[in-house]
């Protein structure tokens, strides 16, 4: 049973890490509460489904087109919808909720409420420590690691990353310093939604695709980012692994309580918020203290 927990926790944690990377960037670093983040993930999954299953394109072109299309859409949405109300935090929340609902309804209308399955990119699996892991999940782990590395590189080794961190820290001063705040915000949104789209293309084959698939990951992502600490990529990775392991332990230790794994993750998030709002590795900003 121990090997099961070790392997399952790692694999599931990897899935969550990939989903959390983009969300950590937009929410943790840029402090834009984008409720529609997982809705973009859903759009990318549907786009990938339509291109690969209905259109018959190969994996690479379908994935590339999905990611690019969703990213462009997100920039458009940001310009039209979020930017005008950027200053009112509550308005941003509502605008993104409304966007997410619009995407959900559009998908419901176009594809129906049925559950759809995307074929895995890699078939087959291997046995590690006596536990069988499908190749698709290993692919997810690899992609997650790659995405994390890329984001870390962009944030800490490029000027754009520096600008993103600066605007998140203090928007007014960054503006005064001469940075084009609008463009940086668009770049942040584009980057984070691109990550969500990549997750949609790689992770969606493991789960089912339906118009409501954006709700459950949203809550888990919030829990992970809060646990890991807003503003820290490393924190989000650790948070994802922690939540993955906690869920695996819940299922293995308490099989009849397997349905509680969601509530346990949330309880952890609440506990973290109460005891140490910055999370494990978070960077708390002055106004938030």
């Amino acid at each position, binding site marked *: *049973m121990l090997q*099961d927990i070790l*392997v*399952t926790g790692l*694999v*599931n944690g990897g*899935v969550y890490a990939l989903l959390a990377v983009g969300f950590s960037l937009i929410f943790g670093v840029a402090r834009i509460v984008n409720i529609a983040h997982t809705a973009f993930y859903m759009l990318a999954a549907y786009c990938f489904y339509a291109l690969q*299953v209905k259109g018959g394109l190969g994996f690479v072109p379908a994935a590339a087109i999905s990611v690019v299309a969703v990213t462009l859409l997100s920039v458009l949405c940001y310009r039209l919808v979020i930017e005008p109300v950027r200053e009112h935090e509550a308005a941003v929340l509502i605008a993104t909720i409304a966007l997410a609902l619009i995407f959900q309804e559009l998908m*419901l209308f176009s594809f*129906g*409420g*049925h*559950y*759809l*399955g*995307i*074929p*895995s990119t890699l078939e087959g*699996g291997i046995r590690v420590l006596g*536990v*069988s892991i*499908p190749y*698709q*999940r290993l692919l997810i782990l690899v992609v997650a690691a790659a995405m994390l590395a890329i984001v870390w590189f962009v944030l800490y080794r490029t000027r754009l990353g520096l600008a993103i961190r600066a605007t998140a820290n203090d928007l007014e001063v960054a503006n005064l310093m001469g940075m084009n705040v609008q463009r940086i915000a668009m770049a942040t949104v584009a980057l984070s939604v691109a990550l969500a789209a990549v997750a949609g293309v790689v992770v969606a*084959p*493991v*789960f*089912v695709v*339906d118009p409501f*698939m954006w709700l*459950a990951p949203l809550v888990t992502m919030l829990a992970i980012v809060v646990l890991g600490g807003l503003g820290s990529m490393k924190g989000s990775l650790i948070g994802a692994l922690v939540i993955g392991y906690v*869920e*695996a332990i819940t*299922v*293995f230790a308490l*099989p*009849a*309580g*397997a*349905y509680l*794994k*969601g509530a346990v993750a949330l309880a952890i998030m609440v506990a973290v918020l109460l005891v140490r709002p910055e999370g494990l590795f978070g960077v708390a900003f002055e106004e938030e203290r």
Partner: protein
Amino acid sequence: MIRSAMLCAALALSSAALAQGTLKIAILGPMAFVQGENHWAGAEMARDEINKAGGISIGGKRMQIELIRGDTNEIQSVPDATNAIERVITRDKADFLIGGFRSEAVLAMQEVAMDYKKIFLGAGAAHSKLGLNVEQNYDRYKYWFRITPVKDVDLARTLFAVMNSIGQQIRAELKTDTPKVALLAEKAVWTEALVAAAQKNLPAMKMEVVGTWQPSATATDVTAELSAIDRSGAHIVFTMLSGPVGISVGRQMGERGMKAVAWGINVEGQKEEFWQAAAGKAQFVSTLDTYAEVEMTPKTIPFVRAFKARFKKAPTYNAATYDAIMILKSAIEEARTTEADKLVPVIEKIEHVGTAGTDTFDKRHDLVWAVGKTAGIAVQWQDGKKVPFWPPNIKGMQPFKMPAR
């Protein structure tokens, strides 16, 4: 202004309809989803067949059937369902109500229908409470009858009957005395009794229960549960799943190459889209079901074929709205009236050869359970097709297959 115009139009329509002799039947269901689609499709088939034959005859006068579409959206919102049923009763002046799917919503809708004393034929919700209400407060709830499915406790009887049959096959093929069964039930009220019954009955059937796993009904990932089940060495995974977790189970069992076979209730597994939703991996997943091209009654095969030809997909159990309308027709023609109070005793005594089985009602206005009559059938997914395999003596049944070891 618009409201009064609509009211005038509705009144005009209904009075015109009365003059011509129209019977309004409201079909209530989540029309954007598979269940509502099947509700409507089954009803349309019944309406067209009856109207083409001249309509329902009440003592010499002929009445055509008019269907009213009531989109309850019950999967997403219970108040929407009660709004919809009130609308079809008061605005659209429905005479009879058929449909429903989500038990929580149907319980609320039942209250509204009983307030207005309209006959409400259930075509989707299995919860016993709906029938219990009839027994406990007959005068209020007598207008409710459940056409499909059989109530939840009777589903259990079918499940164990088939489990026995599969157990025999495993004993023969794998040369093991006590097949091992893993219980995989979503956490829900309807599975509580089933899980308890399984834990009690299976040892008595000479099968060992190796563990009980209860994921959430909307879980999209069951790797942890399946890993544990793998390790336990189970031969059969007894599934009690109604939500999308059924798809995840089918797919992930296939992806892991599990040697155990899944049998039980897997509502997603009853749908045509299941194979695609599980990305073609759900080989050997078996589930309780209602419709297949087998001769449960002389009407089954023609109905299923006609349904497939018209709607390009196989019917789910919700399409029994067809049977519901046929039962109404028989009852109205026998009682020579459309008054609810007079129809209730007629329906209580009816024995209707329907499309899925032969329907009779008990004192809770639930279907009387009997193998070959109303117990349903068992199907298994083999190479992208649902293959019926139980009850084995009915014409059209094929053998049950298991993963190679």
